[in-house]
């Protein structure tokens, strides 16, 4: 098992290397625009000269691999360079926005677990009942509704009906935790609808599988009460599947943050990614997406490790 974990750990840097190389290449498909992004706004006669000086400043005239190597070396030391657009250092910008998105992500995952798991259990222990059927329809609807539509309705309809909207002055968590939660809870709920529904479906199916397995039958046979059977045996083994799924759903949450932060006015990394990608502010885009990918990779690694610890049957 240690060998497996070690192998996974060793793979992480290679993954990040591959991802950054791919991204770097993608963003460099438009080198001309990258140069112009820095200043569409120079004066006419200084246009060519200014572009040349920008290319020199950012080293855009060097060969691809030299540029990449330079970027990667600095990135390894935590320096993501400066924004092409506003010349601000990228690292502090990322650092200030990361906690915002991380909070949104964690809250969403928490809500996902709090809603998804109980719904899945209720559905699984009464299979075929009206309640089960109802919850199945609810959950399948949950994974079908696009989050940007829900978010739109959440801000629009209450404003029409009650002159109320879940938008107030954004306050940072460290300044006013409760006030901050009041804001972040809405995008989190919006994002959690789909992920919770997904988790509920997984919980239900994996629990149904184990409910009729031999060892559960044994547990029942030895006279354990049903509640104990469900909680001690069935639920515990299903948790493994759930952990995996929640880990995977984090990717969806991170992607969803691009949309939710835009609509709910949350100053996080998702908004930064969107703005920098569409405007090819490539130093910012690269850094922000790499941070996302890094979080995602680490979470998946953690999930795999938990998985191996949690399920004694798995041996690598």
């Amino acid at each position, binding site marked *: 098992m240690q060998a497996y974990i070690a192998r996974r750990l060793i793979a992480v840097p290679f993954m990040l290397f591959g991802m950054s190389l791919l991204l770097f290449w993608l963003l460099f498909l438009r080198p001309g625009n990258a140069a112009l992004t820095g200043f*569409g*706004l*120079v004066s006419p006669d200084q*246009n060519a000269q200014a572009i040349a*000086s920008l290319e020199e400043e950012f080293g855009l005239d060097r060969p691809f691999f030299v540029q990449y190597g330079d970027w990667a070396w600095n990135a390894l030391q935590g320096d993501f360079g400066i924004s092409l657009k506003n010349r601000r250092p990228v690292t502090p910008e990322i650092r*200030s926005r990361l906690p915002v998105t991380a909070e949104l992500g964690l809250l969403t995952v928490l809500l996902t677990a709090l809603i998804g798991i109980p719904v899945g259990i209720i559905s699984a222990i009464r299979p075929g009942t009206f309640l089960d059927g109802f919850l199945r329809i609810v959950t399948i609807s949950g994974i079908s509704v696009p989050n940007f539509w829900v978010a739109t309705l959440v801000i629009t309809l209450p404003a029409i009906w009650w002159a109320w909207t879940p*938008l107030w*002055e954004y306050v940072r968590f460290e300044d006013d935790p409760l006030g901050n939660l009041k804001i972040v809870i809405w995008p989190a709920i919006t994002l959690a609808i789909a992920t919770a529904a997904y988790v509920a479906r997984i919980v239900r199916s994996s629990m149904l599988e184990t409910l009729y397995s031999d060892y559960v039958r044994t547990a029942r046979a030895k006279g354990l009460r049903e509640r104990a059977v469900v909680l001690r045996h069935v639920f515990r083994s299903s948790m493994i599947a759930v952990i995996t799924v929640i880990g995977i759903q984090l990717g969806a949450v991170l992607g969803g943050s691009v949309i939710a932060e835009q609509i709910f006015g949350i100053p996080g990394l998702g908004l930064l990614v969107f703005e920098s990608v*569409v*405007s090819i502010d490539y130093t910012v885009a690269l850094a922000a997406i790499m941070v996302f990918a890094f979080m995602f990779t680490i979470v998946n690694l953690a999930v795999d490790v938990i998985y191996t610890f949690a399920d004694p049957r798995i041996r690598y």
Partner: protein
Amino acid sequence: MRESYWGRYWKRRRSRRGFLIGGAALAAGSAGLIAVGCGDDDDDDAEPAATATAAATAAPTEAPTEAPAGGAAPGGTFRQSKTQVDDGIDPGLKVINNNEILARIYNHTHLYKVSTNEFLFDAATAMEQPDNLTIVFPMRPGMTFHHDGGAVTAEDVASTWSRFPALLADQGSQVNEANWGFMDTIAAVDESTAQVTLKAPAASAPVLMASTAFGIVSRALLEQQANGNVQELDAGAGPYVIEQRDSAGVALARYPDYYRHENPSTHFVEGDPYIDRHETRIIVDRAAVKAAFFAGDIDYIPAIADRIEFEEFTGDDRFVAKEVASTEARFLAYDNIKFTDRRAREAVSLAIDYDAMIATLYAGDGVYDGPVGQALPGFALDQETLKSYRTFDPQKARQLWEASGTEVDHIRIETSIDPRGSTLAEFLARQMEENLGVTAEPLIHDVTTYVARAREPIKQWELFVVPYNASTTPEIYNMTMMNPDAFAGVSWSFGVDQPDASLVANAQKLIDLTAAQAQEVDPAVRLEKMREMQLFALDELVPGINLPVPGHSWVVYNARVGNFPEDDVLLGGLLNRTHDMFIKG
């Protein structure tokens, strides 16, 4: 300034409408302008200033201090939103998304209040023009900078304003030459007198100098910077200091040592300014901005799209909704190097159903526009004349198009995500397809890419749509789009460096005509010259078409705001003119 050109011009006017020349200020609006590359400052003007009286031509219509009952000092927190974080706050370098900061943390020699045609004096106590080439500013005593409490002197003014050429050449400034190119030298005669020498007589100079770009930066602080700018610093002496400025938004608090103005005006009030805090939140989504406004979470809703949206707010006592004179502008530029044949340019113009455009895009409320925008009615051509240039004739369009032998068979119409531009580009694409028999597509890009697209040497488009806002002088209004020395040269391939002879001739002619009117200080003669310039551009259809604009603009704010500058707001006045504004209750 006694009897400056502008003073004389404005005095002749009676209608209040004409004063309302708009500016962008609203993030979207300024983004549009910038777009084209010059980023001028449509957002400036009208800012905290002082005393007064110098230019006070019109009697104030509102009581200067409509303080709430009870005698308590008016104040409160004013909340608004913007769509993007600023790119920096050096007033000589950046004009996008930062107006609400620049206008408040910096002070200015003087400001221009559009609605009453006043120059309001702040850092200077007057503006003297001994001759047509000299402007002298006596400085107000007692002003101090935020960062160290040091005094503001004429030296600071001179060093701040002398930076423009270098900022443009070395740092890609967004403040282009149209804004300051008239200045030759700026000198401090003594500690309290700044003197500007002009290259040539410049009729618009006093108004141009009232823009945010002319905010006074501390020379001492500037000299400490390695990169020669104050992009991230509060280097001002204005009424507010930055309390918070990050990805969530901006909070400004009152600067306790802000200097008093000896003789309060409609603008600079006793104990000014009233508002205690200004908060600006970043909200990207338009539906969210509206929801926040409806819920009372923000006090002002910028960029009302049209009368239809405006009507949502009328008849609701929570809000004040007012229809004001139009401050909109729309430019359709050719990539002139692809349209060197006049017949091709005319074909495009004839293929546009201008009246259908007004009927659908503006819901029936629209007017024609010309090279000098309709928001300057004294200068602009009348609707009759403009209408004769805005005819719709698909048959003739098709004939001319074929006769011109143009190689263009696919028209790409580039614009930005600004909804005013994207729907328009879509409309125009459809018109081209239906009436010219070509294929056409609208290309919508984010603002940065769109700017880059405009400036690329080889254009990847045939037509370019720029939605923007009016400004206070012809030079930085529609003419910025058209002047080869401003945007047109690099952005619309309309410059004297182009390979086509007829194009170069046209560009040179327009440059000459533009300069001739700008240097003319006699209003009547200037008007003639301006007319000549306009008719030339209209006859030759260069370098593009001033499309019809909405007939009105709209201002909507929360009724809890007192003394809201509704007649100045679209010029950036709200963001600037904060001294006598307060929150009721």
